[in-house]
């Protein structure tokens, strides 16, 4: 494949309008091409779909009137059937598309209250109370808190599961990245490593973590204006 010959560059394909406040996060549906979720300060989440014929994007659903403050982030489950959204209102909502032919059928399946200010991501939540919560999905739409991980000294900005291993990474306003794993079934999750300035970490708030598909590389970006891989 002549990758070197093509002119690599980013070209804006389409501008999706609809949100009335800052958009904090977007997430691609892992199950297939053409579905995107976005969440915003306007307290709503929008689902966008790409038409197969025209390749253009339209807003298929607006999930509103559930969160009462900024929706900070959204994430799809690996199957692509569930969407979790978290908000400054201290809750995480899990949404399911009940009728796949009717995208308007996305309903809040259950609402989980955390009692914190900022909540994050699918099956794990991190927040302004400096802790990370891990949730399990049980049958019949119930959620159970599997663990609460403390250790960060300031608000946790983002969490991310390793793509292949059962290891959780969290990053925080306290400038560190923490690695959590569960040594055995009964032990719960423990912080096995902290990446801070002293061991090649960042010197300011770490905002985000991401992995490549293989899981052998991790990228982090920080308020110290550096992206590290």
């Amino acid at each position: 494949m002549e990758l070197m010959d093509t002119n690599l560059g980013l070209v804006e394909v389409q501008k999706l309008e609809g949100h009335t406040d800052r958009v904090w996060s977007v997430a691609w549906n892992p199950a297939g091409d053409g579905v995107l979720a976005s969440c915003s300060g306007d307290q709503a989440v929008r689902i966008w779909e790409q038409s197969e014929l025209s390749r253009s994007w339209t807003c298929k659903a607006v999930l509103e009137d559930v969160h009462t403050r900024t929706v900070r982030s959204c994430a799809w489950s690996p199957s692509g059937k569930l969407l979790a959204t978290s908000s400054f209102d201290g809750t995480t909502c899990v949404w399911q598309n009940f009728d796949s032919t009717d995208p308007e059928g996305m309903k809040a399946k259950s609402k989980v209250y955390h009692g914190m200010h900022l909540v994050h991501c699918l099956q794990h939540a991190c927040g302004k109370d400096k802790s990370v919560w891990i949730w399990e999905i049980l049958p019949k739409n119930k959620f159970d808190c599997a663990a609460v991980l403390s250790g960060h000294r300031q608000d946790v900005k983002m969490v991310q599961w390793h793509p292949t291993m059962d290891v959780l990474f969290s990053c925080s306003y306290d400038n560190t990245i923490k690695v959590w794993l569960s040594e055995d079934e009964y032990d719960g999750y423990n912080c096995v490593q902290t990446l801070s300035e002293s061991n090649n970490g960042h010197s300011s708030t770490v905002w985000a973590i991401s992995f490549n598909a293989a899981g052998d590389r991790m990228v982090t970006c920080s308020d110290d204006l550096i992206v590290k891989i």
Partner: protein
Amino acid sequence: MVTGLINENPIIYPKKERRVRTDSNNTDEFAAEPIDQLEIFDILSLDIKDPEHPYSLEELKVITEDSVEVDDETSHVRVTFTPTMEHCSMATIIGLCVRVKLMRSLPPRYKIDIRVAPGSHATEDALNKQLNDKERVAAALENPNLVEMVDECLLPSDE
């Protein structure tokens, strides 16, 4: 509990005489003029009151014309303010007021950085970090009590 103001006797400075702007050549109202330092300073100095006293930030020399650095082409503005006292606990409110005022006055393409003048505050680094954390700022601005305080400071003064 500390009763009374943080700064009981602030030093008041005379207001600066405004330079007359000479852009009589430009009569096209819709032409976008590059935003410059003086314009931003005017926005900030006239309309932000100190949280404790009925004086503007300019009169208390919390901000001066030189404390505004703006680059219209890169849409970046940085304001460096000097709290009147080293342990001023109102510094976060002042910083928030400056940010809100700029957010409401400048085009959305602008990136705003606020910081305290180096050496002017006891917890300078922590303060700067908090003032520029977009998430914390957004969460703060959803707090009705804080918004009320900010709006109080931003009420137009009757000149």
